């Protein structure tokens, strides 16, 4: 414990270095700015700015990405509350009560509560991260290839089945992502796989191109001429953002409970943020004295899901950094960026790159303070940003995507990949497939294959090794339970139809 505090002190030293601080501030600012724009979620924002990280050093790069992440997450809440427009799926729940509050003239208070809830939740998440990560690392050092495989399997399955809609479709998309990861030169034998004789594909599919196709272009394709975004006429000024004493009192315990839900789920690899916010909201409605207030502007319905989203965001970094298993697509992207920078995530990360880990932890706190300081005076600017019409927004974003992908490797071929993945993503979206598990599969795919092959080599081709080793058996057991639960849910589907209906309404 003492050691953790010393390390944290060291982390603040790293995060407060002028150049690191500058990139962190830049990330938070730009993330917030783009996150506010209609239709621009955290994933789009991070993938658009991913190329920028290639030219800067690893520490500021990762601080910037994290800043973009929570900046855009907070920015997304603004759109959800003022415009009923969740650009990042977890905010869909926030819309349910946030938008009615705006209509009742309390939009400013809803934003104020969101800000407090997210700061409180993030702080708790950071504390958990500080004390839990070293413990997890101790366990993780016992992991061999078999254990890494099993935990990845669990993460992939959880990511696939706990996202939106049909679990089967989620699994299908995860497999598709794994297949995208196979493209390129096989590291062990040197064979070119699925490159279709294109030399540009020898190094595999470009992560940035894949993401921008799936989350940028594909989204434009299904949204163009179909969005019915009405410009917001909400006027929010600084003094509106102060919630009344009664509202604060009302929101306090939901905030604490939401934080607990988020922390709990964040520790589980693979559970997405959307499901977390949904559960936090459902919990509040369940224990409320008067559940009928929900959906009509209950402040608890804003505080709890926002708190859960932010604590989950922080806690999510634990498995991502200490095990190398990302919890969702955003974490997969951050992991991908680390790998590109030549840093292998895993138990050795904290000891080998303490500057990254502790710098990141400290920068979270700095970033969250910045968010609070920045958002109060800038709320007028954000409201105006919300009014940028989609017809100007998407061509500009498309251009930034093209230039961004090009600049990664100075390759126009990669820009072509964006178009291809855009079309693939749009087809999947139109058939109601979720696209974010693709990224999870793509990033984990090469690691999974390598560890699987190594595990098989060590066990001389005996598949039973996965259940013979205790830690691995535990993960395999959990995966089996997960599948069994899904099959059971399918068998009992008529009774669950109402729940599913609700889940699909709020989940992406």
């Amino acid at each position, binding site marked *: 414990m003492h050691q953790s505090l010393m390390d944290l002190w060291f982390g603040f030293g790293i995060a407060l270095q002028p150049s690191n601080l500058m990139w962190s501030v830049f990330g938070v600012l730009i993330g917030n700015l783009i996150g506010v724009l209609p239709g621009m979620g955290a994933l789009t924002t991070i993938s658009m700015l991913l190329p920028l990280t290639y030219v800067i050093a690893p520490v500021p790069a990762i601080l910037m990405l994290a800043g973009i992440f929570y900046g855009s997450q907070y920015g997304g809440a603004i759109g959800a509350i003022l415009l*009923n427009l969740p650009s990042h799926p977890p905010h*869909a729940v926030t819309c349910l009560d946030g938008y009615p509050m705006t209509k009742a003239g309390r939009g400013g208070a809803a934003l104020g509560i969101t800000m407090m809830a997210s700061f409180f939740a993030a702080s708790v998440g950071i504390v958990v991260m500080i004390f839990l990560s070293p413990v997890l690392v101790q366990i993780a050092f016992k992991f061999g290839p078999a254990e890494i495989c099993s935990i990845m399997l669990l993460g992939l399955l959880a990511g696939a089945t706990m996202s939106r809609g*049909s679990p089967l479709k989620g699994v299908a998309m995860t*497999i598709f992502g794994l297949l995208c990861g196979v493209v390129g030169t096989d590291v062990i034998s040197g064979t070119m796989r699925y490159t279709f004789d294109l030399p540009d594909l020898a190094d595999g599919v470009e992560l940035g191109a894949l993401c921008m196709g799936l989350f940028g272009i594909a989204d434009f*394709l299904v949204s163009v001429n179909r969005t019915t975004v009405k410009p917001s006429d909400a006027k929010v000024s600084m003094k509106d953002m102060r919630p009344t004493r009664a509202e604060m009192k009302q929101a306090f315990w939901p905030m604490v409970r939401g934080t607990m839900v988020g922390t709990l789920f964040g520790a589980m690899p693979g559970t997405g943020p959307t499901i977390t916010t949904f559960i936090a909201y459902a919990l509040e409605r369940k224990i409320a004295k008067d559940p009928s207030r929900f959906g009509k502007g209950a402040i608890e319905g804003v505080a709890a899901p926002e708190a859960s989203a932010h604590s989950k965001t922080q806690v999510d970094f634990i498995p991502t950094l200490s095990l190398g298993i990302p919890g969702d697509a955003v974490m997969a992207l951050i992991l991908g960026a680390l790998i590109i920078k030549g840093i292998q995530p895993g138990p050795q990360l904290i000891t080998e790159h303490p500057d990254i880990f502790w710098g990141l932890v400290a920068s979270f706190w700095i970033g969250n303070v910045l968010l609070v300081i920045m958002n109060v005076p800038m709320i007028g600017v954000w409201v105006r940003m919300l009014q940028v019409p989609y017809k100007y927004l998407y061509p500009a974003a*498309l251009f930034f995507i093209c230039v961004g992908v090009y600049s990664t490797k100075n390759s126009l071929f990669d820009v072509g990949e964006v178009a291809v993945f855009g079309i693939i993503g749009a087809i999947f979206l139109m058939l*109601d497939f979720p696209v974010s598990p693709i990224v999870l599969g793509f990033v984990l795919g090469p690691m999974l294959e390598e560890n699987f092959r190594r595990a098989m*080599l060590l066990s001389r081709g005996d598949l039973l090794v996965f259940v013979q080793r205790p830690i691995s058996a535990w993960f395999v057991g959990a995966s089996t339970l997960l599948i069994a639960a899904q099959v059971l849910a399918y068998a009992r589907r008529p009774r669950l139809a109402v729940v599913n209906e609700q889940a699909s309404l709020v989940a992406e």
Partner: protein
Amino acid sequence: MRRPQKLGKDHLGALLLLALGAAVFALGLGYRMGTLNRMGAGFIPVVLGVLMMGVGIALGVTAAPPGQREMVNPLPGHGTHAGGPDWRGWLCIVGGVVAFVVLGDHGGLLPATFASVFVSAMGDRHNTVKGAAVLAAILTLFCLIVFHYGLTLQLPLFQWT
């Protein structure tokens, strides 16, 4: 979707997965399989191809009958996904990216920028030719200042190759 169709979305999705899985499987057989002990390059892709076909079959079997309770619950402001693609939008948006690739090679950064913004903007039915051109011009200027002079992007402003 009220109108009864021959195939529901889930059936189409199942067919797509089957086709994809089969293609991956067939191509994967071309690489060395090896044994579990010493896996060749083809092992994992072949397994994934089979898994994909399996999921496709499972999806086809469990799919809701066409026209019945299909999930059309988009996020507000995120397109309804229903009723087929918007062809004009698709053509222009994909065309915008392709224009950037082609003109980036045969033309240079500035023509590529202008064309990609202009072409993709024309995909929105509310955009006029003039409006799209003005937007494209503004972004081209922005690109010149920020990406060329500011961040010194490698792509030359004009080139004929």
